[in-house]
């Protein structure tokens, strides 16, 4: 017996392309996953038959196309697994487990005062789907996106038109020179915020960035959702490997792979998180 909600599919790769530098994008023919996935869910990708590397690798869905039965992931090469994936070609088959994680129910979010997305590096990838769903709900979407340099930026052309994009690079090679959180603060300072009219914020990226975003949102009283990464073994909830310390009411740990990856920032203790 099974109460199947997560599919383990042997899927065909439709395309693999090098976005720029070390960043790649892959479209996969996986109708079961595309048909049921929510924004900000992820998949666990098997690397092949060898037992070294052994584990699957988790990647957020940067694109979900239920009509065409296609999902898309976007990744940066950071180690052996992502390197192997960069060598894959259209037509090959790949084992993909998904959709995984809680994902985002955009219908449950208050978007009356707009949505602010704050991303660093590959952290923009999971924000493409919620950006487009929020725009479809006629919300104002501001995207703050930062990276080390222009070479590290994802393809912002994948952001649905209508979003207001604010770019920052640490070396100033594109957009604002500095951290994306500085750009965000500058923007909020100019705009002012008042007592009511608090936009919802969703953020994804490196831990230090998330902490800073949390700090800013706390100050302005904006509700903040963060998407977390943690070393994962199974990705589907059985091993308890992906623990993240809780804050607020629950004591102990949450599992990033099933309780998350999307959390209300107040529910987790970013301070103690590794990475």
């Amino acid at each position, binding site marked *: *017996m*099974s*109460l*199947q*909600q*997560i599919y*383990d599919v042997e899927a065909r790769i439709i395309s693999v392309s090098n976005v720029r530098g070390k960043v790649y994008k892959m479209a996969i023919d996986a109708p079961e996953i595309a048909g049921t996935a929510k924004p900000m869910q992820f998949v666990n990708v*098997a690397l092949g038959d060898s*037992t*070294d*590397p*052994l*584990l*699957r690798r988790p990647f957020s869905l940067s694109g979900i196309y239920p009509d065409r039965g296609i999902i898309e992931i976007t990744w940066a090469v950071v180690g052996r697994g992502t390197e192997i994936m960069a060598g894959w070609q259209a037509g090959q088959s790949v*084992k993909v*487990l998904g959709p995984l994680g809680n994902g985002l129910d955009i219908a449950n979010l208050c978007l009356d005062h707009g949505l602010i997305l704050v991303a660093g590096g590959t952290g923009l990838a999971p924000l493409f789907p919620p950006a487009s769903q929020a725009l479809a709900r006629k919300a104002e979407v501001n995207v703050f996106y930062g990276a080390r340099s222009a070479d590290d930026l994802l393809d912002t052309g994948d952001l649905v038109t209508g979003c207001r994009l604010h770019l920052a690079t640490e070396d100033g090679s594109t957009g604002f020179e500095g951290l994306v959180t500085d750009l965000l603060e500058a923007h909020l300072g100019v705009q002012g915020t008042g007592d009511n009219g608090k936009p919802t914020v969703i953020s994804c990226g490196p831990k230090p960035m998330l902490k800073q975003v949390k700090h800013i949102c706390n100050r302005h009283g904006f509700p903040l959702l963060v998407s977390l990464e*943690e*070393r*994962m*073994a*199974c990705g*589907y*909830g*059985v*091993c*308890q*490997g*992906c*623990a*993240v*310390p809780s804050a607020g009411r629950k*004591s*102990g*740990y949450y599992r990033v792979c*099933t309780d998350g990856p999307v959390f209300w920032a107040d529910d987790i203790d970013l301070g*103690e*998180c*590794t990475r």
Partner: protein
Amino acid sequence: MNLTTDLGGLRLRNPVIAASGTFGYGEDYIKAGDISWFGAVSIKGTTIAPRAGNPPPRTCETPSGLLNSIGLENPGAKVVIEEKLPWLAQFDVPIIANISAESCEEFSELAAMFARSPHVSALEVNVSCPNVKAGGIAFGTNPDMCYESTKAVRQVWQGPLIVKLTPNVADITSIAKAAVEAGADALSLINTLVGMAIDVNTMRPVLGNITGGLSGPAIKPVALRCVWEVSRAVQVPVIGMGGISSAQDALEFLMAGATAVAVGTGLLVDPEIPRRVTQGIREYCEARGIETLQEIVGAARR
């Protein structure tokens, strides 16, 4: 072809078991895999009191292996017995309750709690957890302590009693014999090997808990050797585990002397493994005219 097997009174439809700690209590597994391919399932190691587990990071990939330092995170026996087991029982797969404790008194109390649940088909006494400070592995490295803890459980539990052994010893047969003498009906082996990893960039141990348990294909040769040694030394059935991810792996364990096998790390990589292993064993046997699993068990020793 008849795949049934018997573990000291516990009859299984097929010899593939979900290893403790890689199946949770089934709630999440059931969403990704088909539980009916298991001959039995062993639940996450459970203690009397709830445990939050160890600080992250809790896992680290190694060559063909996985280090984990979960630290027995579990909601405590009461919640498990009242909430988890009744739900899991609906799937009609025998439930093995894996239990962990810090003293013989605790083991006996824990066993008594599970004895009152109608849903437990067997107890698996974990005297081999490398990830908790008190108790855990200590019980499994000393024959006397293994005897005492097994005995403590035996006195309050009449059903099939499995003791799970650690490979982190010089002579696993002496521990196995102690468990059997104290009344174990079957033995599970192996639990993980103690290992660690260091991040050369930060110059710090990777795991929050510093050391962890090594599992997966890397340890298969050690696990097979343990099964080989123990199944010759004792008369009770042995459940073999350690790095099984294919029918061929499972067959190696059966031929070494295991009466059933468990899949741990393999489930983390691929929830479909129990089906593949079971079907593969069947195909292997049918191609060779082997009619019962028992014909293979210990075949490499004959």
